[in-house]
């Protein structure tokens, strides 16, 4: 138990939630030690719905046009959405974290599990807004049992999440029966030194008797958190029941949830095996379809990748546990490796519980680095989490560094002795330990791909064009782990994503490349309108995307639009109405998202990004950068020259064929962007039109003021 000083305190009235809303948000300023509540207006609910919408609204009014990630006025907002916390429908416990990102300079948003969101919501708050910087290490504690918010001193020597979170659960629970009523948010020692960081949201696992950790992974949220001298957020709430979210129509909610529980019970073992492997079930599927990133996204398939197949991870994951990150999620995808013994670093030889690896970690920290031992991937996963490092950005950044090492841009002298050869797990782990210690070449890799490109061009004379082509980032954020070369729609899905290239807006590869369901530019544009809007909706509500299409009704393939999983979309309409009592149909669902999406888009523009000039993919995401890449898939690329361009490849040099391929693919990308912007109601420069903003009800004065700058 730490000896903590109360730096500030705020008592508030505990009130029952009404149909998914508390109608107030919590504001904490770490500089001034001000704690207060702000009302949630009808306008906020009508225009911004909740979740990410509330985050964006609060952040917009908290920061200035030129706010940088480390300015005191930058905020960390965490919101939950009206559906968040219901225990009936699988995947209903998500928090949405936003901040101005140190990697991109624009708002980043992360959808994260764990108990913090639902407990904070049931403690009385629709969102948590943290501003300012503390003068000393601090913890923000929300006591939802007593109606008390405190800023406490945090003299704790421990920062790394797997230890700190356990300790805080024990300290704030006040007894074993309350361990599951506490949740924490923390980062790790790497967040004091590098930018590719994350936040860990906990939930107490009663069977394992420890705090499990889920990550708000993207965009450097951990770095902002630690820059504010935050050691942790802690919430305690002890009164959870099946109706705490006070739905309007609990029967519909229960019936819809039970229907999905039964679908999962029956279908998961023959569909995605989420209960056995989580998202790691994708490993061999991606490899089969040439979509698994290997050697910094050069290739999508290698025979060696079978060593990282899902069945290898299944051997490591403890089976038969209710591994939901919130109560009532029968999809149970957050698998864990128990009693893992790290072979390196400060926790060498100490048994630890490792959350994951999920697919993104398996691909980013495994195949993309040619690390083929699943236990090495588990160890990287463990240290990333506890140090507060984002496994996606770590994987993509390290892969970039390894490719630079392959080309001689880097060498042992420049890396401080690290041999960054493909497959060198020891070197990858040492990079991580250096990030945590704040020393060595790990600090360079931890800056992310965009800054590495600048450094390697400036200091080592590397070819800036090659670095641009192979550096897998856009807007400053590292790509997540899918190959998009053969799917034009996915190239758009990645590059147009507002926060940077993350697949949570659109995953269209199978629709586009495998099943050829969206052949024309207009078809792709429609998909790049609908799916990002539909997926945005999860973040407005506090929901997880996975129970939407990682389990499907038995007759889904026979529906008109199987990719949309129509029955599940109807489920969401039904449970939204059942919780909030507000009208909704499938069209209004998309409109709810479109308002917030366009607001976020304009927010990015306000911060100086967010237009066509920012929606630029590195060529590695579009086509083969190097001769070896072209030659490795020569038959495919030659055939495309013949079929798509009518060019006979025989007699042409590889360089000539690569140039023709590149011109064609880049032209296609630009045509796609034209079609998508038109469909989204934006100008060819990527600016939302006044007419469109008016038609969706997002013509707020502050939005129009920014738009006018770009007319």
């Amino acid at each position, binding site marked *: 138990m730490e000896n903590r000083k109360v730096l500030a305190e705020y008592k508030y009235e505990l009130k029952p939630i009404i149909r998914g809303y508390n109608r107030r948000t919590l504001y904490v300023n770490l500089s001034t030690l001000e704690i207060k509540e702000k009302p949630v207006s009808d306008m906020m609910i009508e225009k911004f719905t909740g979740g990410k919408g509330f985050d964006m609204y609060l952040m917009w009014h908290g920061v200035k046009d030129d706010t940088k990630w480390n300015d005191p006025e930058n905020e960390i907002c965490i919101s939950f959405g009206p559906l968040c916390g219901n225990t009936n429908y699988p995947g209903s416990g998500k928090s949405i974290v936003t901040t101005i990102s140190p990697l991109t300079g624009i708002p980043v948003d992360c959808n994260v599990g764990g108990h913090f969101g639902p407990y904070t919501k049931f403690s009385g708050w629709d969102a948590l807004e943290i501003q300012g910087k503390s003068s000393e290490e601090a913890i923000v504690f929300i006591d939802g049992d007593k109606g008390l918010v405190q800023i406490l001193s945090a003299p704790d020597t421990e920062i790394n999440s797997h230890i700190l979170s356990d300790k805080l659960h024990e300290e704030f629970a006040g007894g074993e029966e309350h361990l599951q009523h506490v949740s924490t948010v923390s980062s790790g020692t790497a967040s004091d030194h590098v930018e590719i960081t994350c936040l860990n949201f906990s939930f107490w696992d*009663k069977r394992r008797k420890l705090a499990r950790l889920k990550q708000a992974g993207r965009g450097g949220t951990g770095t902002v958190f630690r820059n504010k001298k935050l050691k942790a957020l802690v919430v305690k709430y002890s009164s959870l029941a099946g109706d705490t979210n006070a739905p309007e129509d609990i*029967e519909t909610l*229960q019936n819809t949830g039970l229907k999905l*529980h039964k679908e999962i019970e029956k279908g998961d073992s023959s569909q995605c095996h989420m209960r056995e492997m989580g998202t790691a079930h994708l490993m061999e599927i991606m490899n089969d379809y040439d979509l698994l990133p290997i050697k910094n996204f050069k290739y999508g398939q290698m025979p060696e990748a079978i060593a990282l197949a899902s069945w290898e991870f299944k051997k490591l994951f403890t089976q038969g546990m209710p591994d939901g990150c919130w109560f*009532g999620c029968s999809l149970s995808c957050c698998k864990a490796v128990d009693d893992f013994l790290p072979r390196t670093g400060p926790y060498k030889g100490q048994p630890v519980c490792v959350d994951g690896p999920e697919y993104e970690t398996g691909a980013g920290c495994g195949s993309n680095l040619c690390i083929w031992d699943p236990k090495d991937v588990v160890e990287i996963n463990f240290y990333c989490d506890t140090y507060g490092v984002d496994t996606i950005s770590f994987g993509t950044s390290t892969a970039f560094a390894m490719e630079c090492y392959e080309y001689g841009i880097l060498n042992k002298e420049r890396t401080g002795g690290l041999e960054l050869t493909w497959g060198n797990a020891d070197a990858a782990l040492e990079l991580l330990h250096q990030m945590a210690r704040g020393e060595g070449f790990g600090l360079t890799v931890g800056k992310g791909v965009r800054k590495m490109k600048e450094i390697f061009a400036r200091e080592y004379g590397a070819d800036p064009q090659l670095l641009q082509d192979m550096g897998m980032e856009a807007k400053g954020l590292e790509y997540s782990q899918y190959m998009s070369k053969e799917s034009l729609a996915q190239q758009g899905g990645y590059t147009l994503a507002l926060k940077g290239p993350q697949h949570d807006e659109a995953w269209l590869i199978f629709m586009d490349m495998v099943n050829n369901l969206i052949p024309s530019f207009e078809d792709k544009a429609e998909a790049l309108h609908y799916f990002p809007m539909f997926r945005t909706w999860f973040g407005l509500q506090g929901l997880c995307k996975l129970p939407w299409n990682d389990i499907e009704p038995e007759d889904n393939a026979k529906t008109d639009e199987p990719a949309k999983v129509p029955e599940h979309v109807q489920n969401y309409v039904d449970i939204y109405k059942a919780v909030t009592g507000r009208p909704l149909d499938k069209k209004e669902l998309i409109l709810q998202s479109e308002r917030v999406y366009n607001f976020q888009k304009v927010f990015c523009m306000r911060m100086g990004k967010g237009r066509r000039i920012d929606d630029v993919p590195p060529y590695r995401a579009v086509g083969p950068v190097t001769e070896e890449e072209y030659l490795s898939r020569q038959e495919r690329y030659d055939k495309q020259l013949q079929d798509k361009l009518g060019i006979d490849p025989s007699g042409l040099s590889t360089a000539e064929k690569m140039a023709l391929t590149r011109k064609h693919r880049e032209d296609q990308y630009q045509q796609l962007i034209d079609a998508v912007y038109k469909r989204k109601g934006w100008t060819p420069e990527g600016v939302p039109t006044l007419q469109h903003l008016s038609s969706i009800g997002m013509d707020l004065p502050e939005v129009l003021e920014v738009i006018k700058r770009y007319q």
Partner: protein
Amino acid sequence: MKKLLKTYPDKCIACHMCESVCANLYFKTDEAEKSCIRINDSVSPIDMNVCNQCQACVSACPTKALTVTAQGVVMLNKKLCIGCYMCIAACPTDSMHRYLGGLNPFKCIACGACAKTCPVEAIKIETEE
């Protein structure tokens, strides 16, 4: 060792006395949908559905609200239950129940009240190793 309510459908005469006793005992009502044992006489042979204490629900419960007694009977701790109904979906015999308007599920705890009133000994409390 587990204690359970065993059913003998060939003896059942579908008088539904067991449902009435059970629903009255736990919910003070005659409604069959609030009984832990369910008799379906629209099929032949008669379907008698009741928990066999297999414990599949226990491993599905995220709050450990379902536990097993020394006699092998699965019990629900209502204080810990958060009404997610994952146990209902996990039950291989559809013997975990709920009722409209309620939050917590309910199940047979092998109390034997129904067995005592069955006129034809179609249900009996027995012990299995």
